[in-house]
């Protein structure tokens, strides 16, 4: 551990957060890693006890502890199961930040990839879009297919080989090209005025979902403001121990909206929304931003949650009747507790039959960059999710997070179609 290492965030946490766990064990059956190993250390209750022991000064921040905190998916299923209301996310982020501050897992390879991705690309929206454009060229020019065909991928290191098919297909146009900064419903005077978060991965890989979100908002009489050149919300950074970078990104996001004039700020990506709602806590020690960050928290709404809270306009049918199953993203379901609304919305489409997905609230293994850092556990969860989806007999799966979308599509293959619930809704509105 470096000598000038900063003091531990775990030790400066409000002790009541650490003390809240009364180790009843109700979280155990909901934890995917405990389910895999059956070892307490790989469970929420175990991890919480380790974090508390560190805070109490009875255990050093160790490599074993660090590995454990990165084995955790951060899916937050434990928080839905917890009767005592333990704020696991808060502790988890503090622990990962301590691990990064103290360079417990530092290797030159890890440092290179983290610097390139978390610290560089995801801090700079223009670079992200540039990479997106380059990948689009690579995919659309036929180069990707050609390289795949001649077996070039076999020359890549094994972990990159496994990830290559996960590369998202880049959209023809990014959000700013297909969504105008200001859009108003055509015929009526708008009832609401909302801001729209275009996301980062969502922007380059699923800009069509952003277009659909704006269309559904317009159909429900909302005026939509989508600021240009938005960046990453900082969720990736916060979940991976880079709290200072997350703060910078939060400040940028807050600056890009005029909060006083908006009824809501809409997020359509489960993983982002879960982080976006906690800017208040993130910036609580920043006198310039603390107050606005709290205002921000009160305005951030998940798109499904927002639609179910306003007077929803009647939906038309889909072009062809469909059986659909829904996979809730962990950070929408467990993180934001938006549990019923997406299913309720889908079920209101006249010719949609919604089929129940077994273990729906179980992580698909995407979990941010988890499928890159812990490919084995991620694959177990992907297979389990795919089996459950296939058992429903549905060929269409709805899910509202780009990570889950890619993970599930990759697992299911091209016979199945993964769609954002809002894209399905947009289609239904186009048919009214």
């Amino acid at each position: 551990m470096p000598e000038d290492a900063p003091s531990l965030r775990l030790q400066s946490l409000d002790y009541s957060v650490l003390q809240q766990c009364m180790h009843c064990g109700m979280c155990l059956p909901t934890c995917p890693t405990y389910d895999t190993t059956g070892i307490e250390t790989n469970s929420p209750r175990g991890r919480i006890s380790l974090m508390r022991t560190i805070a109490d000064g009875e255990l050093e921040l160790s490599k074993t502890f660090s590995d454990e905190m990165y084995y955790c998916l951060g899916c937050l299923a434990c928080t839905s199961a917890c009767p005592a209301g333990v704020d696991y996310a808060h502790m988890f982020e503090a622990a990962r930040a301590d691990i990064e501050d103290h360079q417990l897992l530092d290797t030159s390879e890890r440092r290179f990839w983290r610097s390139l991705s978390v610290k560089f690309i995801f801090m700079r929206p223009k670079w992200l879009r540039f990479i997106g454009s380059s990948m689009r060229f690579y995919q659309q020019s036929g180069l990707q297919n050609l390289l795949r065909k001649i077996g070039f991928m076999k020359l890549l290191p094994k972990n990159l080989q496994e990830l290559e098919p996960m590369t998202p297909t880049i959209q023809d146009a990014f959000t700013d090209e297909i969504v105008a900064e200001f859009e108003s419903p055509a015929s009526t005077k708008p009832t609401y005025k909302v801001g729209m978060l275009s996301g980062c991965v969502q922007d380059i890989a699923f800009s069509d979902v952003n277009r659909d979100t704006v269309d559904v908002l317009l159909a429900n009489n909302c005026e939509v403001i989508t600021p240009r050149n938005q960046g990453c919300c900082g969720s990736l950074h916060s979940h991976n121990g880079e709290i200072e970078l997350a703060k910078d990104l939060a400040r940028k996001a807050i600056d890009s909206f005029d909060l006083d004039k908006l009824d809501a700020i809409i997020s359509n990506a489960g993983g982002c929304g879960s982080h976006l709602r906690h800017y208040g806590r993130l910036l609580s020690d920043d006198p310039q931003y603390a107050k606005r960050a709290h205002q921000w928290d009160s305005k951030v709404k998940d798109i499904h949650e927002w639609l179910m809270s306003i007077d929803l306009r009647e939906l038309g049918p889909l072009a062809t009747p469909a059986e659909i199953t829904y996979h809730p993203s962990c950070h929408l379901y467990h993180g934001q507790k938006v549990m019923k609304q997406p299913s309720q919305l889908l079920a209101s489409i006249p010719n949609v039959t919604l089929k129940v997905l077994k273990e729906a609230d179980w992580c698909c293994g995407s979990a941010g960059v988890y499928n890159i850092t812990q490919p084995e556990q991620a694959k177990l969860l992907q297979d389990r999710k795919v089996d459950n989806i296939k058992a429903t007999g549905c060929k269409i799966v709805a899910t509202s997070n780009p990570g889950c979308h890619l993970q599930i599509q990759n697992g299911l293959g091209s016979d199945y179609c993964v769609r954002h619930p809002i894209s399905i809704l947009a289609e239904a509105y186009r048919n009214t």
Partner: protein
Amino acid sequence: MDTHSIVQELIALLGQESVLTKKEDLICYSFDGTASLKCMPLAVVFPTTTQEVSVTIQLASKHQVGISTRGSGTGLSGGSVPAENSIVIATGRMNRILEYDQENLTLLVEPGLVTNRISETVEADGLFYPPDPSSMKVSTIGGNVANNSGGLRGLKYGVTRDYIMGLEVVLANGEIAWLGSKCVKDVAGYSLKDLFIGSEGTLGIITKVLLKLIPKPEARKTLLALYDSMDDAAATVSKIISSKIIPCTLEFIDQYTLQCVEDFAQIGLPTDCGAVLLMETDGFPAQVESETEQMKSIALEMRAREVRIAATKEEGVALATARRSAFAAVARIRPTTILEDVTVPRDKLVEMTQFVRETAARHNVRIANYGHFGDGNLHPTILADERDEEEMKRVHHAMDDLITKTIELKGTITGEHGIGLAKKKYLKEQFQDHSYELLKLVKRSFDPNNLLNPGKIFDA
């Protein structure tokens, strides 16, 4: 004691992947579901067969180190908190269903099987395993047997003991013994299996469990009665019992608990009433209909503000599930929850619940009260903060008073959680004659060197 060589021998016997010794791992096995109790073991092992349990015990015996057995660690009396420098035998990898005999209505399972899996397995075939401790989605059957766990259905269906037909146990010397049989009638010799039920890991280690199954009731109805006063709820229970109705569940929840449970479960429980009774009847449809009506009218007669009947099976399950979360949900008020398990004869319920309220006032502590009214098993839970020494003193005075009163009313200090470490100091108050010595005599005959879960129940 040479810890290093013990660990090396364990690894040689069981394999590296079955032995945990890192400090981080040991910390995670140093506690169970009980507040404020922890102790690190010297190693945690995961045997997969009876034979591996046996060799582990022999090794422990050779080195004279203790063994504490652990299922999922949900116990509420500290029974699976390791003794100092002991080996923890975690049963999680012995979790198979070995035989499902639908002709004799039995199920043979390994101890690490999660309790809920039993219901999932047999209910599809119209069979039923009634014991349902609140932790059943997490707890293991081995832990249930070792603590003789109860649950919400104890009133009508009894407790774990009533469904155990046979046990395989490994004794302190490593010998393996099969106790019991598939026969409904069996009086050959002492009923030794009954000694192991509720023995909290102090007499031997349970490695197989033969369970009795019964036909699943065809119908079930759940009612929720809301009261302004706890005494009216208690009076309702007495009246139902004296009317010769035995519902499968008669649970009460006081206002503190209700607020916490609703905060967690969000199923629309009323949080402004003094107490609620959760009642469930099961059996043949006609009987269920008639008992539902009778219980409803008794509740209204006893001044229930309102009686709700669950419209669907799912609604009933949601209510029972919410009740099961009570123990952990009350931690929303204060972080340290000291859970009592006192049980009194049912005609003393009103007196005991009043005493709980007076005790809270007398010692200036908060006590949330809920539990199984139907079988007299109360769970007054003292809410505190373990870091506040002065408050913890008051908490202990309150606990002492509750215990003394329970014994005065000819009740028992634990209905279903066991003695473990948490209730150990009170056991002698309840066992005032030679019975206390008799307990020790049994322990010494089975485990003369005091290696099995040493320090639990009493000091041998």
